């Protein structure tokens, strides 16, 4: 459990040195308060103060499109495409999201496409000192503080960055760059003070204990709240695309123009889209938007609790920010709570 310190004026050197070793992905500003994880080569490109990126870092673990099989007329081979990369500046909510995906794809039968990529990604987390905006519910989901899932973790102070070195991979990076100083007792007490102060900023966003949310869903399957969402949802699929824990996919064949070679690829799919649960005869097992929204919420707050013993919501607020119909996750939970008061 080592901590090291990097003076802020050396951050640029750190990123440059890192990007000389491998690809570095980090949040960059795209204007209009929109941010995106993208490749960077210097610290100046990175937006260290950012609200959740449009897409979570899951896009590096499970790309929007990825080839599973390449084929020609005689043979077919399963393949995986990957980069050796560092994702720098991952907020604690997104670290939690990656932990969820890790569980899903490590289950048997294992998904080796995901796991090969995972093993080639180094993660550097970044602590939040305040709420991103009104949509965040990270405290309710216990994701406001670091909870593992990183190689290095940065806490930002006025004049320096404090790095928690969590794995050997992280230690190797620190050693290879060689511009860090060991943290001393005053750094550590400042970190403790910072975390204490966070406790007064991050308060449970809804009047419910996190552990009681699953029980709330146990009695909400036929709630009127879903009828309300049925009226409002546009079935665009934005909420699932931007969700750090949504992983549903479709598998599609794409023949090349020569008609003898081609690829079978996986792409993101969304349970919010009308054909998602349709079968060949035409029957659709989740025909209404209300049922599809209900399914999404149950996939966050109920079903994974039974299987993985954790919620698949990280409180990042992306689904609420991206919703064109202004369906806000916190409001939906609040409405469900009210129904049972």
């Amino acid at each position, binding site marked *: 459990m080592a901590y090291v310190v990097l003076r802020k004026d050396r951050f640029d050197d750190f990123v440059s040195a890192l990007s000389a070793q491998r690809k570095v992905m980090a949040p960059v500003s795209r204007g209009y308060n929109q941010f995106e994880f993208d490749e960077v080569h210097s610290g100046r490109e990175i937006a260290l103060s950012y609200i959740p990126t449009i897409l979570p870092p899951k896009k590096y673990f499970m790309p929007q499109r990825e080839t*599973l*099989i390449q*084929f020609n007329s005689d043979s*077919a*081979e*399963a*393949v*995986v*495409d*990957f*980069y*050796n990369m560092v994702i720098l500046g991952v907020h604690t909510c997104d670290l939690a999201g990656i932990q969820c995906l890790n569980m*899903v*794809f490590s*289950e048997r*039968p*294992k*998904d*080796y*496409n995901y796991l*090969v990529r995972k093993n*080639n990604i180094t993660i550097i987390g970044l602590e939040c000192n305040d709420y991103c905006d009104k949509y965040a519910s990270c405290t309710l989901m216990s994701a406001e503080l670091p909870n593992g899932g990183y190689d290095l973790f940065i806490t930002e102070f006025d004049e320096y960055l404090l790095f928690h070195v969590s794995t050997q991979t992280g230690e190797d990076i620190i050693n290879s760059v060689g511009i860090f100083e060991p943290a001393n007792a005053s750094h550590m007490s400042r970190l403790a003070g910072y975390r204490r102060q966070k406790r007064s900023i991050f308060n449970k966003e809804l009047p419910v204990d996190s552990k009681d949310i699953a029980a709330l869903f146990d009695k909400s*399957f*036929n709630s009127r709240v879903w009828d309300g969402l049925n009226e409002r949802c546009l079935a665009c699929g934005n909420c699932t695309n931007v969700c750090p824990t949504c*992983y*549903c*996919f*479709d*598998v*599609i*064949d794409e*023949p090349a123009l020569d*008609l003898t070679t*081609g690829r*079978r690829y996986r792409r993101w*799919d969304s*349970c919010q889209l009308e054909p*998602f*649960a*349709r*079968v*060949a*005869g035409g*029957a659709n*097992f*989740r025909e209404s938007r209300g*049922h599809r929204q209900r*399914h999404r919420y*149950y996939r966050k707050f*109920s*079903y994974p609790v*039974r*299987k993985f013993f954790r919620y698949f919501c990280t409180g990042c607020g992306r689904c609420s920010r991206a919703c064109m119909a202004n369906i806000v996750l916190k409001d939906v939970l609040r409405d469900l709570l009210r129904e049972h008061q």
Partner: protein
Amino acid sequence: MNRQILNSSHFSVERGVIVKARELSPHDKLFEIALPEGKRLHHDPGQFVEVSVFGAGEAPISVCSSPTQGDTFDLCIRDVGRVTHTIHTLREGDTLGVRGPFGRGFPVRLFEGNDLVLIAGGLGIVPLRSLVQYVISNRRDFGKVSILLGCKTPEDVLFGDEIEQWNKRIDVHFVCTVDKADPEWCGHVGVITSLIPEEMLIPERTFAVIVGPPVMYKYVIGELLKKHIPDRQIIVSLERHMKCGMGRCGHCQIENLYCCCDGPVFHYDEIKHIEEAI
């Protein structure tokens, strides 16, 4: 970007050879498939495979023959979409991709020593055929066996010649009904629930198996419950689009269950509180 060959990928397919292809109806073809080097599929009745033609895609298809058939297995495929349409163009000697078998099949061990009522609606006879063949191959392991088949019209009755054989056997009771008869039809007319035999039933030693279109389950289950068959002994095979077969892609999800892994065969007591199931 690095590209690596994945020998362990569960998306890899085996090349199955079409040993025999036979038209069952204008929309349905029966394919007999052999895996390379005489390898067996080792499936349970009621399981399914993912079948693919590279360039067209992949589709989940139930295995409609019993594992007792030997080195080959049968797939009955209706021409309804891009993949199945392409498969219909294949001929004997052609290959197709096979992954699987997947899912939980019929609990045949539990059936042993008990009476069976096997109920199929329309295309439901396709997955159920694997069980019928299995039961006939191991006939003395089971008690009384009834097979009830309901179809829209006589033209929709698949496996006519095979059904003729079942009809002739002294050790199975076979009945067929259609919603709408034609002048040549000599069988029953009416809903399938009317075929459930009254006298057969010693409820505690009867297992009922239902495979049919989604709309059929409620009525048939209701009828079986009226005859006091225990929930646990009512077995259904549910239809969903099982795209990946690994409990991940989400398409076949029924609330917290994945049809491809937890099913497609369920005991009624497992799903009776699950509103999305039937």
